[in-house]
């Protein structure tokens, strides 16, 4: 299946390798394979542009080696924000567990 990447060089993901203890949690949680082990018992960022700023890696990094301004990449939510409407940040995603009923919107 096609590997999707959004805009280049835009995400706020930052990684400080010297803090990494190689626990692998960031690899475990990242849904876009942004990290991988680099052979030195630390991880490296391989595909920064694939990051969707979900924040899973930074939240699960025990040594705060990763930081990212997380949020939902949704134009409608940004527009609502600009209009001053405090909408529930939209997030429509396919419900991965159930391909038959699929889309859920909240």
């Amino acid at each position, binding site marked *: *299946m*096609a590997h*999707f*990447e*959004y*805009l*280049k060089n*835009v*995400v*706020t993901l930052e990684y400080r390798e010297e803090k990494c203890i190689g626990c692998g*949690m960031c*690899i*475990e*949680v*990242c*849904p*876009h*394979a942004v990290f991988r082990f680099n052979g030195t018992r630390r991880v490296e960022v391989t595909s920064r542009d*694939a*990051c*969707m*700023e*979900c*924040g*899973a*890696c930074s*939240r*699960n990094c*025990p040594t705060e080696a990763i930081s990212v*301004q*997380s*949020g*939902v*990449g*949704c*134009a*409608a*939510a*940004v*527009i609502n924000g600009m209009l001053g409407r405090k909408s*529930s*940040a*939209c*997030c*429509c*995603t*396919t*419900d*991965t*567990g*159930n*391909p038959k*009923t*699929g*889309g*859920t*919107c*909240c």
Partner: protein
Amino acid sequence: MHYTVDAGLYALENPDADTPVFVSANYKMSFDALRSALPGRNAWILVLDTRGINVWCAAGKGTFGTAELIERIEASGLAKVVSHRTLILPQLAGPGVAAHEVKRRAGFTVRYGPIRALDIVRYLDAGMRAVPSMRHKTFTLKERCVLIPLELYAAVKTGVLVMVLFVIASGIVGPGGWRDNMLNDGAFAALALASAIFAGAVLTPVLLPYLPGRAFSLKGFIVSMPVVVVLFLLRHPDITSAAGMLESAAWALMVPAVAAYLAMNFTGASTYTSLSGVKKEMRWALPIEIGAGVSGLVLWLSARFVA
């Protein structure tokens, strides 16, 4: 609220003190997906109160979060029910839960299971190991297609109103009688808008990986080009007249503007767009979309008056 299940600890088949514990959201579809992915297996399922919202959305909002998980572990007395200290969470709960915090404060080790419930048995049987493909959030044709009705519904809700306004406006001002105007120019306006919605809310999601460019607006714009051509062939405008020229230019602006705007909105449904990226795209795309839409409207109205 029949899309929710009550929070708490559930038993699948006959679990005992050594049986794995899965954590899920109290959105019925999340819970059912997990349950049906474990046919005939013993398991504990700890359901968190995510206010009826699915795992990924709830994790993003923080309701599927560290605090709720710890509270639910304590309230359910899980530590007395099982002798091991491992929880299997859906990987997409990652944005909400800090595994090391759960370990520190509740004594349970969090393991993230695969993204798709369908892979859970393979994950378990491999000794709680996921192969990389189980960890990758995809956006397949099928996954994109199930989103189309939602996109269409949102677009058509406003779209129908705008179409009606165009038809009425065609009747009020224009060269011929109101009835002819509405049936001719008004109907074409409705068709053009419907085509723009089709391009932005149907063609863009379907063709997403094949459309050039990274920005969704650009993809929507590109896919609207053949649609504009088809509209012109249908309309056969008299481009030697001022009115024909103005009307053609109007739709050549409005159709791409609407399609690009709707395509941009599809970022919310996609599984890989970042907030920083969306903001960057919107900074240039939104002014162009609004500008093209408004100038198209002005041209269309002037076409009505000069005709």
